[in-house]
């Protein structure tokens, strides 16, 4: 029951965030970024931690979501919900269409194929200057207030945070439901013993495809929100280094736990934000965090508490 208690405490903390965060030296946009990255990494974790696929190119879908949202606002219509929808669909569609390429491979091949896809999207974003803004990134759009009939929800800093929190909640509920379902259980089974599941007659590849598609959609959802947070996106949102950071955040928090990615994101984003303000050598510290997590806490922070977590 402490698990349920912990989740409730977490939710209360998140809802009250704009009030207590500035007291400890934070700012609301940081909170929004943490939640957005949490959505992205929890989506990725469906593939990485629950299905056991080493996906190292997730940033591609994050970026697709971001560009989708940005381009909608810039070229199509000044509507925030539409932008989020388009972004999410763009990433989800890409993941679904590319899934068949990815689903048949494992281990390092799986990783490299996801990287290859990611880099291809990166290059399209960088070279297609007229549409995407190229190296300079996509600017000239901004999130629009949401109109509900006559009432307007103005997307100020704090209000946007609550929108993100709402999206986070929706994403969490969806993911939790899927993981509790037969689909989710099959994923875990695939991770634990792929051969055995194959012998049971289950088309493993289809399930990997499904995981990949769902993960892509959720990460794209996060990407769309990210573009709206900063009113900007650039090819760096598609780069494999961001993908690597996502993976690190998940391992940091604990791959096998549902909320592991959230914990990892909090630690990583806050550490990076704090360290880069106080020292020019923050990259060294981040690198040392990577190294010590791998050497000392391979199960991640939550993995320390979760005895069911196994390091394969």
């Amino acid at each position: 029951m402490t698990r349920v208690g912990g989740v409730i405490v977490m939710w209360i903390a998140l809802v009250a965030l704009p009030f207590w965060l500035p007291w400890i030296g934070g700012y609301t946009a940081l909170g929004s970024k943490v939640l957005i990255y949490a959505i992205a990494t929890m989506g990725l974790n469906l593939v990485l931690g629950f299905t056991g696929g080493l996906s190292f190119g997730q940033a591609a879908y994050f970026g697709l979501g971001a560009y989708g949202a940005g381009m909608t606002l810039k070229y199509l219509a000044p509507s925030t919900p539409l932008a989020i929808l388009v972004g999410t669909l763009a990433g989800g569609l890409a993941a679904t269409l590319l899934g068949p390429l990815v689903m048949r491979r494992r281990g390092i091949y799986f990783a490299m194929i996801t990287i290859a896809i990611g880099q291809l999207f990166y290059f399209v974003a960088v070279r297609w200057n007229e549409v995407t803004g190229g190296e300079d990134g996509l600017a000239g759009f901004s999130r629009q207030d949401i109109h509900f009939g006559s009432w307007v929800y103005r997307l100020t800093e704090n209000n946007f945070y609550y929108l993100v929190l709402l999206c986070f909640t929706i994403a969490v509920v969806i993911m939790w439901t899927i993981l509790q379902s037969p689909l989710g259980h099959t994923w875990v089974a695939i991770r634990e013993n792929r051969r055995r599941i194959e012998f049971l007659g289950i088309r493993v590849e289809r399930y990997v495809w499904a995981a990949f598609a769902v993960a892509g959609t959720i990460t794209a959802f996060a990407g769309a929100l990210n573009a709206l947070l900063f009113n900007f996106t650039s090819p760096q949102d598609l780069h494999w280094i961001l993908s690597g950071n996502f993976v690190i955040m998940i391992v940091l928090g604990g791959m096998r736990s549902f909320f592991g990615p959230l914990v990892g994101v909090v630690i990583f984003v806050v550490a990076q934000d704090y360290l880069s303000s106080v020292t020019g050598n923050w990259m060294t510290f981040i690198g040392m965090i990577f190294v010590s997590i791998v050497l000392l806490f391979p199960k991640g922070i939550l993995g320390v508490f979760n005895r069911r977590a196994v390091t394969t």
Partner: protein
Amino acid sequence: MQLLLFNAFNGLIQGVFYALMALGLALILSLNSVINMAHGGFLVIGAYLAYTLNPYLGFWGALVAGPVLAGGIGLIVERVLIRPIYKRPDPIYSLLLTFGLALIIEDMTRTIWGPQGLPLEVPDIINSPVSEDYFFVTGYRLFVVGITAAAAIGLFLLLRYTLLGIRIRAGTRDLETTSALGVNIYKLRAFNFGFGCLFAGLAGVLAAGVLGLTPPMGNSLLMPSFVAIIIGGVGSLFGAVVGGLIIGLAAGIATTYYPAASEAVIYLMMLIVLVVRPRGLFGEEGLFE
């Protein structure tokens, strides 16, 4: 047509760099089973150490000292950081650890030598073009090809004809049995890792002659090296070399018609290989799957 030939030839020369990097990476991947994301970092170490030693040892001395020192640092890294994670079968750990190491190396390099780009002075005799028509075949590029060829041939000879080489090859196949046969696999893995880093350091010194030195210089050469290994075939050293040359060639040809896609084309090739024939050209089936 002539332009195409020029570019293809030129791409091949560029591919030599990739081949050198890929060779070191493949060594480490095959025997140590480590995905070394810090390979670019060892490239940087080799280059910067050569730069620092250049005034004292001259270019040729630095050419030897830089890579050797990089290899030495590789030995230390292997002992301290890599050895604890051998027993974990999931490759994600080596990947993330070396990723972090790469960040540390880049940052420390910038702290010690500064962010400013630095030139590596190369002896004049090897720096000028060799012929009028093929002006882009400079002495230095031929030098790079020569040194890389010598290093690759040296490695193959070592693997073929020396006891150490046989042990490394055996270890790649079946580490457990090799150990059971009485070979000290700790020393073997250490030496192998160091050797791979030496190759990276060598690539660094050679690259510095063309590109100069900057702390992030390893990053742009790292990914293409992985691509080279995949295309050439994971587990095959010969494949790594061939893979490097192929992607260099492909990038060169792409530059003729559509320069913007010259980097993208190598990832596209890797994608095709992974979908159609994941073991690559010379790789073995079932490895790493």
